[in-house]
C-alpha cells in the first residue's frame, strides 16, 4: 500500500520580524516573524536540505524511480533544477528527475500524484514568497521546504485517500520573471475557496472512508486565510485537532507550506493517527493519511518545532531587502566572483554536488577535494569515493574575513576536520561570527556560493551543528 516512507522539512535560519519592517516603513502589517532563505540559499538548496532530512532515517535508498522538485520560484527555467537536487543528494543516475511547479498548488498536488502512482519517488517541495516593501505578502510570505519519500514500501504514514476541486478565477497571479504576485481583493476569493475547501474535503473523506470526526490532526492553509478559517468552523473536525498553520512563525511558504505542516504533524503524531491536510490554491486539494508504528523510528532528525526554535530573528530589514534583490548596496572594489565553468563543474560533479572526496586504497587517508596521488603515502593507484555529507566535523581553525565579498559580511572562513579523517577549508554560514570557536561541531549545508553570468555556483559550506547532549549534560538534567 502506498504511503510516506520517510519525511523531512527545512526552515531556514533567518527570521524577519514584523517589527523590523515596521521600524523602517512606519506601518505595521500583521505580526510575528517570517522565515527567510539566506543570501546563499534558493529553492534548490532548500529542497536539498529537506531531502537530506527525509533520507537521514533510511541512510541509503535501495530503489528509487524518480525525483520530483516542486517550486513556484525555480532557480533556473529551461534547465531542470531537480538534477542539482538529485546530484547533491548523491542519488543514483538511473532515475527520472522532474521539475513541477509554477504555482502554489503544485506542492501538495505533486505529493498526491506520487501517492497515487506506482513509482517510488522522492518529492521535494521548496518555495519562497515575498512582496513589495511593506506589503502583506512581504511580512506574511515565507521560505521553507519539505520532502517525502513515497512508494509501496513500509511507511510511516499510509495513504488513505484524497479529494480535489478545481475552478478558474483570478485571485492571485504573477507574470514569469516577476518577483511577486498581484492579488484581487481577498473577500472575492474567500467565498469561492470556502466552497472549494468543502468540496475537496468531503471528496477526500469519501475516498478515504473516514468520517470528519475521526481526523486527529488537520492542517489547512493556502491563498485564502479567511476561507481556511471559515471552513474549519464547519468542517466537522474537532476544533482542538486543527493545527497551527505556522504562518506567524514561518510565513506562508507557498507550495511548501502544506508539506511543512504535514512534516510538523508527523513530528508529533502517535502511531495510528489520522492526518489530513488541505491546500487552497486555484481550487483545493485534501490528502488523508494514517500513521503507522514505523513513525517512531523514522522521524526526521530535527523536528519542525526545533527548526523554528533554532532561528535567528535579528535579521535586519535592509539585509532582507538586499538578499531579495530589492536594495542595491555598495560592493567592494573587487571583480565579480569567477563563474563556475560548465566542463570543470561537470568533471567535478561528485565533489561539487555530492561532496564526495577520495580515500586512498593503500592507507585510508581521505582527501577533500579528491586527489589522484595520496598526500600521505604517495600511492598513485585508484582511490575510493567517500561521501562525507553526514560525517561529524569540528572546526580546527577559523578566521573572520572583512575583505572578501559577501552580501552578508563578514565572511567566516573555517578549516574543519572530519571524524575518521579528512580536512576541508570552506565558508561557514548561518553563524554569529562572535560565537564561532575552535572545536565547535559543524554540519554540511548545500549553498549557492555566487552568481556570475546567470550561473548559480552551488557548493557546500558548513554551519553550526545542533550539538548532541554530552553525558555530562544528560547527568545534570537527570539530577
Amino acid at each position, binding site marked *: 500500500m502506498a504511503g510516506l516512507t520517510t519525511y523531512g522539512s527545512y526552515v531556514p535560519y533567518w527570521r524577519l520580524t514584523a517589527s523590523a519592517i515596521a521600524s523602517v516603513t512606519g506601518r505595521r502589517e500583521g505580526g510575528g516573524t517570517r522565515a527567510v532563505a539566506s543570501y546563499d540559499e534558493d529553492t534548490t538548496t532548500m529542497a536539498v536540505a529537506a531531502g537530506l532530512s527525509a533520507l537521514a532515517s533510511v541512510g541509503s535508498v535501495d530503489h528509487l524511480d524518480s525525483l520530483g522538485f516542486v517550486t513556484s520560484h525555480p532557480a533556473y527555467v529551461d534547465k531542470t533544477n531537480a538534477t542539482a537536487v538529485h546530484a547533491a543528494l548523491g542519488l543514483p543516475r538511473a532515475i527520472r528527475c522532474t521539475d513541477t511547479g509554477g504555482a502554489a498548488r503544485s506542492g501538495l498536488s505533486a505529493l498526491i500524484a506520487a501517492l497515487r502512482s506506482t513509482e517510488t519517488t522522492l518529492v521535494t517541495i521548496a518555495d519562497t514568497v515575498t512582496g513589495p516593501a511593506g506589503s502583506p505578502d512581504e511580512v506574511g510570505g515565507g521560505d521553507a521546504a519539505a520532502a517525502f519519500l513515497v512508494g509501496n514500501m513500509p511507511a510511516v504514514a499510509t495513504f488513505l485517500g484524497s479529494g480535489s476541486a478545481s475552478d478558474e478565477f483570478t485571485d492571485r497571479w504573477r507574470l514569469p520573471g516577476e518577483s511577486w504576485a498581484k492579488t484581487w481583493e481577498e473577500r472575492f476569493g474567500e467565498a469561492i475557496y470556502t466552497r472549494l475547501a468543502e468540496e475537496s474535503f468531503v471528496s477526500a473523506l469519501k475516498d478515504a472512508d473516514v468520517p470528519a470526526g475521526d481526523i486527529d490532526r488537520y492542517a489547512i492553509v493556502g491563498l485564502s486565510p479567511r476561507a481556511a478559517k471559515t471552513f474549519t468552523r464547519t468542517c466537522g473536525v474537532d476544533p482542538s485537532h486543527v493545527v497551527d498553520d505556522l504562518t506567524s512563525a514561518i510565513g506562508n511558504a507557498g507550495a511548501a507550506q502544506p508539506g511543512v505542516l504535514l512534516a510538523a504533524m508527523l513530528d508529533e503524531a502517535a502511531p495510528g493517527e489520522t492526518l489530513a491536510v488541505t491546500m487552497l490554491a486555484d481550487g483545493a486539494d485534501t490528502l488523508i493519511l494514517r500513521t503507522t508504528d514505523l513513525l517512531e523510528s523514522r522521524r526526521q532528525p530535527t523536528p519542525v518545532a526545533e527548526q523554528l526554535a533554532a532561528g535567528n530573528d535579528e535579521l535586519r530589514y535592509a539585509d532582507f531587502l538586499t538578499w531579495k534583490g530589492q536594495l542595491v548596496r555598495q560592493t567592494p572594489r*573587487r571583480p565579480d566572483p569567477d*563563474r563556475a565553468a560548465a566542463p570543470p563543474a561537470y568533471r567535478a560533479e561528485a565533489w561539487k554536488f555530492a561532496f564526495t572526496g577520495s580515500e586512498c586504497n593503500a592507507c585510508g587517508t581521505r582527501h577533500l*577535494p579528491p586527489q589522484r596521488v595520496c598526500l600521505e603515502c604517495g600511492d598513485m593507484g585508484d582511490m575510493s569515493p567517500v561521501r562525507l555529507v553526514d560525517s561529524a566535523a569540528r572546526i580546527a581553525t577559523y*578566521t573572520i*574575513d572583512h*575583505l572578501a565579498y559577501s552580501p552578508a559580511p563578514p565572511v567566516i572562513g573555517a578549516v574543519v576536520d572530519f571524524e575518521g579523517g579528512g*580536512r576541508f577549508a*570552506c565558508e561557514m554560514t548561518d553563524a554569529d561570527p562572535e560565537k564561532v570557536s575552535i572545536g565547535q561541531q559543524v554540519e554540511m549545508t548545500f549553498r549557492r556560493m*555566487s552568481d556570475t553570468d546567470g550561473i548559480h555556483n552551488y557548493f557546500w559550506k558548513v554551519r553550526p551543528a545542533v550539538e548532541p547532549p554530552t553525558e555530562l549534560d544528560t547527568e545534570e538534567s537527570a539530577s
Partner: protein
Amino acid sequence: MSSYGIKDRVAIVGMGCTRFGERWDSSTGDMLIESTRAALMEAGLEQDAIDAYWLGTMTSGFSGMTLSSVLKTKYKPVTRVENYCATGSEAFRNACYAVAAGAYDIVMAVGVEKLKDNGYSGLVNSDDSTDGTATALSAPARFSLLGPAYVEKYGVSRETFKQAMTHTAWKNHYNGARNPRAQFQAEVSKEKIDAAPAVAGDLGIFDCSGVSDGSAAAIIVRAEDAYKYTDKPLFVKGLAFAAGPGTGPIDPRYDYTTFEEVVHSAADAYQQAGVEAPAEELMMAEVHDCFTPTELVLMEDLGFSARGTVCDDTLSGKFTLEGALPINPDGGLKSFGHPIGASGLRMLFECWLQLRGEAPAERQVAARGKRYGLTHNLGGSPGDCVSFVSIVGPELG
C-alpha cells in the same frame, strides 16, 4: 635529492629599481624602460649587449613580447616567467642558470607589475575556468590563520603576538620612511597601527602590505667577467625554490604555524651557500612580509629565531636596522606594496645597495664582518605555497 647550486659562478653587475607606488604616470612599458635603463647604466652597457631576458610578471602581460615590443630588443630571446608571488625571483633564478650553463654571456632578469590600473582593491587573480568550489577567502584572511595557531601551539599570549605584529609593521614603516623608492615613506606609530580597522582575524589595515606598481631589473654575467662591468659586483651564493604539495588545507596534521616550503627552500639555499648559522652569518635579509604574521613565522622557518621565540626576538629589537639581524631594511612589502613580478628583484636591489655599502646612510646596515644578504619570497597561502630563497655576497669565496 641533489641540489648543487651555482655558488660563485654568476654575478650581478647592474641593477635598477623604480619608485613603487600608484604610478598613474607610467604604463607597464614605461616602468620596464625605467628599470632596465637604470640597470644598464650601472653596468655601463648598451641594451644591445644583453643576450637574453627573463621577464617576471603575473598579470601585466603574458609572453616575452611584453618586454620585447617595448624595448625593441631585436629578436633576442625573452622568457616570460610566472610563479605566484615569487615571480620576480623566479625570473632571476632562471636567468642565473642560463649564464651558469654557458648559454649566454650577459642576461637580464626583469620584474614588473601594474596592479593599480584595474581599479580594484587588492590583488586580482581571476580564473574563469574552475568548478567554482575553491574558497573565496581574501589573502589576509588566509594568512590570519597563522596567529591563533601560533598562540595555541607555543603558549604565547594573543596580546604578545599582536604586539609583535604591530612592532613588525612599525619597524618596516620606519625603514620605508628612509627609502625614496617606497610607496609609503612615512613612519606609523604603534598606536595608529593598533587602532586601524580590522581586515581579517586579528589583522588590521597596517598588518597588510599595500597594492602598488613597480619594476626592477638585474644584469647577470659569469663571475669571472664581473669586474669588467663594475668594481662592486654581487656574487650569487645560493638559489633555492620549493613548490609545496598544497596539502595544508586538506591535511589535518597541518597546524598553520609554519611554511614547510620555506623550511625546505631555506635549507637548500644555506647548503648551497655554505651557511650554517644564518642568524649569525647574514648581514641582512629581505623577507616576504605580505602580512605581519607572515614575517613573524618566517623568522622561525628561515632559522633566524628558535621555534616559539620570535615574539621575544621581535620585541627586543633583533630585527631593526640596528639589531643583530636587520630584516627588510628597505621597508619591505609593507612600505613598497607588492607588485608581484617586481617584488623579488626589488628585494635583491636592497641587497645590491646594502652589501655594497651604497644604501642611504639613514638606513645603511653595519656589516660587522658579515658578508651575505638573503632574499625570500612566498607565493600562495599557509600550507599551500611556493617559496624562494637566494643568498648573495659581494666577494668570491
